[in-house]
């Protein structure tokens, strides 16, 4: 029957299948969710009001046979955290099943007239609306167990208590192959957008699904083969390579040695306890305890497998996954060097439905504000109870860093567009600061991913030591990332396709082969810019100006040890990053 748009109206409790409009047919993943949000959501609407929508979509190649590491699902809407457009994507089980059901995208709109909560079951035969009474108030570990028993071998998308309370730091969980939560579309509060639709969970059963049609099988296979070979060859992504052995937390010690690991609410770039919460420390603990694993795959078909399952002190599997950003936010940025605390806090985030980056930054903010001391792991873990129970304090903390900073009178607020910064100090690593400041998503480390200047089309030799050219470089990164976010491939394919030209070509060929859209490597940045332009214009219509593309004030004035650097890139340079939007 060809791909369809599934529109779920929660006001009328009706689901309809629509033909895919021509403009949307050419997009997948982020390009598609952002296109739909731009076309259907009033930029001035309240994010928690009736006119916002939750959109989710698999990527271009997601669900195709053996496309490596391509199980991402993009979620989009207007963000309660930033007030701008948001795309946040996750691994887990949902993307491939959506694609195999022939769904180009799912749009969830409206709000139940009866103000009741529902869970939705999507099958090849349609959508059923089930009362969610037995799920309410439960965390995502229980939700996945309850729904997993009733609907085995399905994908389960859901929100924890944070989403029920419509907190701005509520993420959307996707279950992993072991039917556990932990794959989060975490950033930007889209869990609250799901919550206001009255949807606690969405079950996706692809039994009998028609699968993904492939326009050019030969081209798809050629591209897939080249990309797979590149991933398996590259030192970082191959089996037993850096990511497989130590996960993304392999970065903890590197950034710490560089003086770029934000510590104690971005007051230093070096944390004395970093090694204890690093990927290397995780690997040692897993080996010593004889439980858990590094090299875990977050979705079927992933050949990088950078996830992990971390055991508790007694050797019982506790939580998956402790990412770099997670162990940094909950650990170093709070002055805590206890890996077991980080694991338990990650479990709490997964269960309550919180983005770990925003949650860790928020606890650090509470520490800066005097609610508890930096390094107080016991005090920090109690704060999750406050959020879970929805106490007045918990509701403030659940709103994220900006709200917590106001509540506790803190002026050192490491956010851009209301979203807190990830684990790279922009005063020490200035390139990332340009992306933090200018991306439509708010401070986001994944907004400008790893593509070398020569491949990203910047050309020439970019001086890594100069502020010159940082804007152009950041734009190229952002555009390429927007493209990869649309493919359904994990962003970590960026490492091998950077070094191995055949891999880069293979990625594009696989997309062209699946979709039938003619494209080459030269189209990557232009297509990415097309997506960025939509997102930028949405934000402008929502009221954003150039003044929103600025790092926080304190980073211009406060020297960051050990290098004692301040933010030095000019506002004019930042404004040039998106100057083309109205010039083209």
């Amino acid at each position, binding site marked *: 029957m060809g791909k369809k748009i599934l529109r779920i109206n929660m006001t009328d409790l009706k689901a309809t299948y629509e033909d895919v409009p021509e403009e949307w047919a050419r997009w997948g993943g982020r390009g598609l969710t952002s296109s739909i949000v731009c076309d259907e959501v009033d930029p001035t609407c309240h994010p928690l009001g009736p006119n916002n929508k939750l959109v989710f979509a698999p990527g271009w190649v997601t669900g195709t046979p053996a496309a490596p590491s391509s199980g991402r699902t993009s979620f989009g809407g207007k963000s309660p955290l930033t007030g701008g457009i948001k795309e946040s994507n996750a691994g887990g089980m949902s993307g491939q099943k959506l694609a195999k059901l022939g769904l180009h995208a799912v749009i969830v709109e409206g709000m139940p007239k009866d103000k009741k909560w529902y869970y939705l079951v999507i099958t090849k035969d349609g959508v059923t609306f089930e009362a969610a009474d037995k799920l309410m108030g439960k965390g995502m570990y229980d939700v996945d167990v309850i729904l997993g028993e009733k609907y085995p071998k399905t994908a389960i998308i859901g929100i924890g208590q944070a989403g029920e309370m419509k907190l701005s730091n509520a993420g959307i969980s996707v279950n992993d192959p072991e039917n556990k939560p932990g794959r989060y579309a975490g950033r930007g509060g889209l869990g609250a957008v799901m919550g206001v639709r009255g949807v606690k969970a969405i079950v996706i059963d692809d039994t009998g699904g028609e699968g993904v049609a492939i326009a050019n099988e030969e081209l798809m296979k050629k591209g897939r083969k080249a990309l797979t070979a590149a991933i398996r060859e590259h*030192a*970082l992504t191959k089996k037993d*390579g*850096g*990511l497989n*052995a*130590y996960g993304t937390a*392999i*970065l903890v*010690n*590197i*950034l710490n*040695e*560089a*003086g*770029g690991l934000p510590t104690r609410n971005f007051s230093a*770039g*070096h944390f004395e306890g970093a*090694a204890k919460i*690093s990927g*290397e*420390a995780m*690997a*040692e603990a897993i*080996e010593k305890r004889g439980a858990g694993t590094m090299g875990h795959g977050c979705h079927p078909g992933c050949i990088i497998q950078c996830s992990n399952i971390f055991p508790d002190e007694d050797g019982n599997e506790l939580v998956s996954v402790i990412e770099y950003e997670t162990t940094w936010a909950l650990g170093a940025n709070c002055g805590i060097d206890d890996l077991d605390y980080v694991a338990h806090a990650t479990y709490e985030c997964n269960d309550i439905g919180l983005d770990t980056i925003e949650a860790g930054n928020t606890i650090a903010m509470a520490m800066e504000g005097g609610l508890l001391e930096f390094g107080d792991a016991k005090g920090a873990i109690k704060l999750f109870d406050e959020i879970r129970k929805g106490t007045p304090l918990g509701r403030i903390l659940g709103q994220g860093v900006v709200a917590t900073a106001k509540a506790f009178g803190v002026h050192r607020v490491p956010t851009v567009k209301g979203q807190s910064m990830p684990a*790279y100090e922009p005063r*020490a*690593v*200035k*390139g*990332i*600061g340009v*992306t933090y400041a200018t991306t439509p998503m708010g401070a986001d*480390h994944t907004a*400008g*991913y*790893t*593509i*070398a*200047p*020569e491949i990203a089309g910047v050309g020439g*030799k*970019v*001086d*890594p*030591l100069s502020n010159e050219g*940082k804007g152009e*470089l*950041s734009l190229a*990164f952002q555009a390429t990332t927007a493209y990869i976010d649309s493919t359904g491939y994990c962003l970590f394919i*960026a*490492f091998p396709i*950077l*070094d191995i030209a055949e891999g880069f070509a293979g990625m594009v060929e696989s997309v062209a082969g699946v979709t039938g859209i003619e494209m080459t490597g030269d189209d990557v940045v232009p297509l990415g810019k097309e997506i960025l332009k939509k997102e930028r214009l949405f934000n402008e219509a929502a009221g954003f100006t150039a003044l929103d593309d600025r790092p926080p004030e304190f980073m211009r004035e406060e020297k960051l040890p*050990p*290098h004692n*650097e301040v933010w030095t890139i000019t506002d004019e340079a930042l404004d040039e990053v998106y100057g083309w939007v109205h010039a083209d």
Partner: protein
Amino acid sequence: MADAVNKKETITVDVLLYGPIAAYGGGTHIAEVKMTMPQGVLFRDVLSQLGIPAEAKGYVFINAVLCDAPGLNASEQLQIQADDHIGIFSGTHMWPYQYRDGVRMSDELQAVLREKGAMHHSYESVAQDE
């Protein structure tokens, strides 16, 4: 008196090894080694004393300054000072470009990068170029 002279002629440095090369420091994934070495020692001597082959090292930091990268050779001649903190990573350790663009670097590494262009991930291909 002899002891006092010897103390003046040696320095102590703190070396952290990350990843598989931790084995050279007696660890599995991380090793910390306090080394006592003669004054005027070079970084290559540190590697040599630990038994680490030059090609096994990846990123190298000395006192939070990036001094070398996988596939490059910008650190061997660096003189080590008393109380230096040295971090040596295995070649497999990742550091995406945008997360290192703008970090503090040694003059020697800057010179290599100005010659070869911006840092990127081509560990093997850069090495082959040399």
